[in-house]
């Protein structure tokens, strides 16, 4: 090789005040953003700590056994009929019954809506349903409760035996509230399918429904399940809308149209009337602890579903 020319290129890095400025900027930026992110961890740890410390007092300080608490069917914390009883099974039942029922009602509707948006009429179907879903998501829960009280409950009262309040009313109201959750997850899942999947099915001569039912839905089923679980979690944690239509009797109902309660509804009603530190109050905190625990369970289920789906 020939010798290459050797004159300098003038790139001497120089230290000076400018160096200080931009490195100070970087340190400040990194610290500020990290603190904000770390704050999230601090927040959740605080929530868990405080709710748990109050919630566990029921068992450790007031001497209620976990079994009596979770499986007892009598809720009488003020001891109106003798000894105070802290059985919360009616509320656990109510929460699960409304959430599961709401998910059962909402899931088929959501799947239809998402199919409508992505498969049946992809052009204006999306333009129509997307804003509808977003609006449904934006309506505040108290308004849902109000409509439940003034429309759903009277309707149920007229059509079915009973007062119209209860698990059915709660489930119906909740199902509309969780429709957006399930629909958006399902629609996203459908939209991210590779086109080849559909096209190869059509190329084989399948009808659209055959393609949907045999190829598309089985493929996105894990994602849709994720949406359903998220919807259930939302329903499980909903307080005011449910409280307004469920009746709030602390019993396990014998029908869908009899007054019932959920974990959230009893907390809403009773918390304001109890003395902080009393056994009654602590029992409510224990229910809050149960709600928090279920949130973790729901998130874990979602994560498990996502992990299994990741090929």
């Amino acid at each position, binding site marked *: 090789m020939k010798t290459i020319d050797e004159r300098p290129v003038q790139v001497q890095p120089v230290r000076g005040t400018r160096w200080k400025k931009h490195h100070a900027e970087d340190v400040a930026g990194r610290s500020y*953003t990290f603190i904000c992110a770390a704050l999230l961890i601090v927040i959740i740890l605080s929530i868990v700590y405080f*709710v748990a410390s109050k919630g566990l007092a029921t068992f450790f300080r007031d001497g209620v056994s976990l079994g009596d608490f979770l499986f007892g069917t009598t809720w009488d914390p003020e001891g109106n009929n003798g000894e105070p009883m802290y059985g919360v099974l009616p509320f656990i039942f109510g929460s699960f019954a409304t959430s599961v029922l709401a998910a059962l009602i909402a899931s088929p509707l959501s799947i239809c809506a998402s199919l409508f948006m992505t498969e049946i009429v992809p052009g204006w179907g999306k333009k129509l349903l997307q804003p509808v879903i977003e609006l449904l998501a934006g309506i505040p829960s108290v308004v849902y*409760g109000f409509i439940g009280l003034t429309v759903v409950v009277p309707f149920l009262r007229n059509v079915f035996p009973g007062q119209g309040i209860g698990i059915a009313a709660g489930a119906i109201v909740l199902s509309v509230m969780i429709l957006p959750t399930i629909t958006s997850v399902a629609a996203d899942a459908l939209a991210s399918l590779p086109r080849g999947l559909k096209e190869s099915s059509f190329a084989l001569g399948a009808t659209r429904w055959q393609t949907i039912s045999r190829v598309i839905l089985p493929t996105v089923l894990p994602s849709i399940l994720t949406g359903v679980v998220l919807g259930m979690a939302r329903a499980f944690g909903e307080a005011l809308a449910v409280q307004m239509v469920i009746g709030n009797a602390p019993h396990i109902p014998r029908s869908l149209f009899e007054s019932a309660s959920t974990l959230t509804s009893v907390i809403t009603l009773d*918390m304001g009337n109890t003395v902080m530190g009393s056994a009654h109050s602590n029992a409510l905190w224990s229910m809050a602890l149960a709600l928090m625990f279920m949130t973790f369970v729901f998130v874990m289920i979602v994560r498990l579903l996502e992990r299994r789906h990741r090929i």
Partner: protein
Amino acid sequence: MRAKLTDKIATFFIVVFSLLIVAVLVGLIGFILVRGLSHIDWHFLTSVPQTIREGGGIGPQLFNSLFLLVLTLIITIPLGLGAGIYMAEYAKPGKITGTIRLVVEVLSSFPSIVVGLFGLLLIVNTFGFGFSLFSGALVLTIFNLPLMVRITEQAFRSVPKEQKEAGLALGLSKWKIISSVLFPVALPSIVTGTVLAAGRVFGEAAALLFTAGMSTPRLDFTNWNPLSPTSPINPFRPAETLAVHIWKINSEGLAPDAAQIAAGASAVLVILVLLFNLFARWLGGVLYKAMTASKRMG
């Protein structure tokens, strides 16, 4: 052919159910507006509620909702932006990042009543802020933060990578790139998302029952001293918001026109949330156009 018949039937049901959902929405909003709009007038929007008499209004509650929203956003936006930027630009795959993601996921699924209870315990009682706008704002921040973080992170991640590289090659510091190159590009999405989140915050009630409270002191709207107890902008006073008020009327409505007040208040709430939605879209679109379109020389 059976397959073709099944296809037609299935399609029919899919369309019917989808249109059913549209009908439900239209019905919901129609119902609220029909029942409530007639009750809304200037008097309703500005006067105080009556406990047992007719003719109560929602003035203070409306103000509380708006003011509380502003307070919440003031706290949430810097925190949400910071955390979102960290997740998008600084976080490396690892334990801390994974933990933060899990926290965001869990917090966003948390029942809002539990967050409210936490606020009651820590902010209202332990820190001693009592039932107040400030307590409510802190709790709403916790409630809103996961969404803000997600919005910000997504907005920054969708900025083309080449923008960052161009900044690096010019010798800009990382923070300068984030704040002056990436942030303006991410801004339209962040604004849209924030206004939509604000709509959610505006309608939230469960978290406020035991933090901002279920009552409002007498407010003197001529008193703008934030430290005075009758001033509407004193953040340390109890503040029943519109959403909480609707719930309260429905559970213990003693006034004879409770049903109409609830309907009117619901209508106001729904209309405002709709406006937030529309405003979010419009503003995001305007910002995006301003950023990318050519401007004519004046």
